[in-house]
């Protein structure tokens, strides 16, 4: 029998070396999947030519949804018929990316029946990615996923699949229940996720403390970052324990505090909590001795994104503090107002952060009915080009 396995001289180089190899993964999927084999052949060609071979080409999806599937076609479909159509299904991940072995096997079995057998655990936004299938397999795959309790995530100009850090499930620093908030927001906006209604994408990420393990500030239009309002909790004997174990508290903790709010006299650590900016450094260094305060909640920030179109933005403060138990209601009200304003004034393919850049934060605040507070800026303006508004009726 002739050996019809893909010849992959260049890709074989990527099976060498200690780090686990994605080429090995594609080859193992290729044992049972013709499309995984053709993916390997096309990828080898890309490595030879230093060129990608994918193209867009019309919308594909499942009945009644406007997103959740990324249509992908090979530009060399005659040469590689089994990846002529190679669409991606975005499956909304469980909050915190927790699974059981049984749940994983369920996904694997469905994907063995309906796709390439290749996945990404996970995509950049957070979804479980099922990588590569034909148009005809989309609806059956979707319905089997749904019967197993899974649904599709967002794509295009939609409410994108929210994601969150591990939060209260396994972290002592969680200042609010990020997994619950992530789940609740996901369930609240299923329509906006599955039927793209916006000028462009809208991403939400829930990080339960300022360490921001999900990069919310850089990668989400709405970044919900856990923090606390009262004093850092100190266990004095544990502080002494760190000192006697060799930690240089002056150098490694106090000197690195960004607001210089800590002092160490060799016996006692004192903290000027009013000057603490809640950066987490001291708590990260001494997790047994220091903990976030008890009055916990989150700072809500807006506008983060990668470069396209007008340049990358980090989110900036919109609401300096919302108590943990008020977060969901506050966010729902805020999101409604932000979406109303964005719907009305946003240009096509304009993220919320770019809209704020274009119209200015003051006009955005007017639009969503939020009062300005000094926490929103690193400093007041330093230019005198102030557009004074005419006094409203009844005002002086």
């Amino acid at each position, binding site marked *: 029998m002739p050996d019809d396995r893909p010849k992959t001289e260049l890709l074989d180089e990527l099976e060498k070396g200690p780090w686990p190899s994605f080429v090995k993964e594609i080859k193992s999927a290729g044992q049972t999947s013709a499309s995984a084999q053709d993916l390997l052949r096309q990828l080898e060609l890309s490595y030879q030519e230093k060129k990608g071979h994918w193209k867009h080409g019309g919308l594909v999806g499942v009945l009644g949804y406007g997103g959740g599937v990324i249509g992908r076609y090979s530009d060399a479909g005659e040469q590689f018929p089994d990846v002529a159509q190679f669409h991606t299904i975005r499956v909304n991940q469980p909050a*915190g990316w927790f699974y059981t072995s049984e749940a994983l096997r369920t996904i694997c079995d469905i994907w063995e029946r309906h796709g390439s057998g290749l996945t990404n655990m996970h995509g950049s936004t957070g979804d479980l990615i099922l990588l590569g299938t034909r148009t005809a397999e989309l609806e059956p795959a979707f319905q089997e996923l749904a019967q197993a309790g899974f649904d599709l995530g967002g794509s295009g100009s939609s409410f994108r699949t929210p994601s969150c850090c591990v939060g*209260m499930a396994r972290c002592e620093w969680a200042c609010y229940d990020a997994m619950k908030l992530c789940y609740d927001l996901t369930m609240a906006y299923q329509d906006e996720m599955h039927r793209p209604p916006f000028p462009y994408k809208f991403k939400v990420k829930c990080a339960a403390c300022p360490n921001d393990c999900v990069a919310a500030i850089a990668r989400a239009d709405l970044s919900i970052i856990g923090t606390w309002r009262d004093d850092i909790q100190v266990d004095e004997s544990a502080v002494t324990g760190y000192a006697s174990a060799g930690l240089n508290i002056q150098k490694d903790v106090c000197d690195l505090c960004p607001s210089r709010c800590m002092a160490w006299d060799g016996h006692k650590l004192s903290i000027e909590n009013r000057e603490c900016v809640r950066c987490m450094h001291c708590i990260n260094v001494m997790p047994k001795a220091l903990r976030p305060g008890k009055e916990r909640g989150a700072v809500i920030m807006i506008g983060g994104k*990668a470069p396209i179109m007008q340049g990358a933005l980090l989110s900036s403060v919109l609401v300096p503090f919302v108590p943990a138990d008020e977060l969901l209601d506050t966010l729902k009200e805020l999101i409604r107002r932000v979406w109303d304003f964005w719907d009305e004034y946003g240009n096509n393919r304009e993220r919320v952060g770019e809209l704020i850049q274009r119209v200015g934060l003051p006009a955005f605040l007017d639009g969503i009915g939020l009062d300005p507070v000094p926490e929103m800026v690193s400093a007041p303006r330093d230019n005198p080009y102030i557009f004074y508004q005419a006094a409203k009726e009844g005002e002086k």
Partner: protein
Amino acid sequence: MSATTQPRLTDIGPPHYEKYLHPLIKKNYGQWKYHENLAPGIYCHVAESGDRIYTVRAGTPRLLSIQTLRIFADLADKYSGGYLRFTSRNNLEFLLDDPARIEPLKQELIALGYPVGGTNNAISNIVHTQGWIHCHSSATDASGLVKCVMDAVYDRFTHEDLPAKLRIAVACCLNMCGAVHCSDIAILGVHRLPPKIQPTLPRVCEVPTLIAACPTGAIRPATVDGKNSVAVVEQQCMYCGNCYTVCPAMPMNDAENDGLSIWVGGKVSNARSAPMFSKLAIPFLPNNPPRWPEVVEAVVKIVDVYAKHARKYERVGEWIERIGWPRFFQLTGFEFTRYHIDDFKHAALTYARSAHVRY
């Protein structure tokens, strides 16, 4: 078959996370007291109740076959009661209640080729994009670059010997479907030629959408052979590929001119310094598959120089802020060029606006 016998389900949302939580996690949810880092890749979280949950973290290539996922499921059944999770950087974590199972699990993972590590002051797994595996606008492959870089810094994943954590990201074009713009070291695929407009635009390409898609306003309406089309003002094009995303008749891929740029000093954490963007270190390196030696060499250089010169707890960006950019270029030997000086919006904010010069 099931679809015909059962009602069609939509908008059910993801499964509730609670059904996937280890019983110890469910019991101590929100009641964790502190954690200890027992070894690279191994955490112990201690609850107020005194319960302990152990985490064993392993690196994966992110692109995983169902065959491998089934192996992970079997490992979870054997060692962690069937409970596992993935991290935001594509690592795999097993959650154990019995510390005696840590070492056997670790040894089995290593034997299977999945390194245990990625915690604390290690280089964790690389966040990356699809590249030639699945993307239409990629200037390079992502998985291949990740594999080559992680092979070269493998010991930095399995050891925690850096001054602070170090986060690497790879994006295969300017769309940056990963937190490349805020990473300690970022590898970014770049195109360097404007799109090659095909003679006739297919129906899917709408001229107003195309014009609006260009961040720099480089796309203008034009009439070609009596038909509506577009022209590109080439001096204004910065090769983002956004037009190609909305119109397949504007291809960007070019084997000779596509390549990589290297960025440094970004972070997302608020610890100590505020979050920062990554800044340009090397404007162009050749796209050289399958092993990208130039890129690997540059990344290893940055890591080694940082490891040698940074102080404890300093992230790459914090270290460079302390020593200054001239010294960064001197220590790494990277050339400073006109491309390093910003000339887009708000560029002047990055010009040195003081007489603070290190000599």
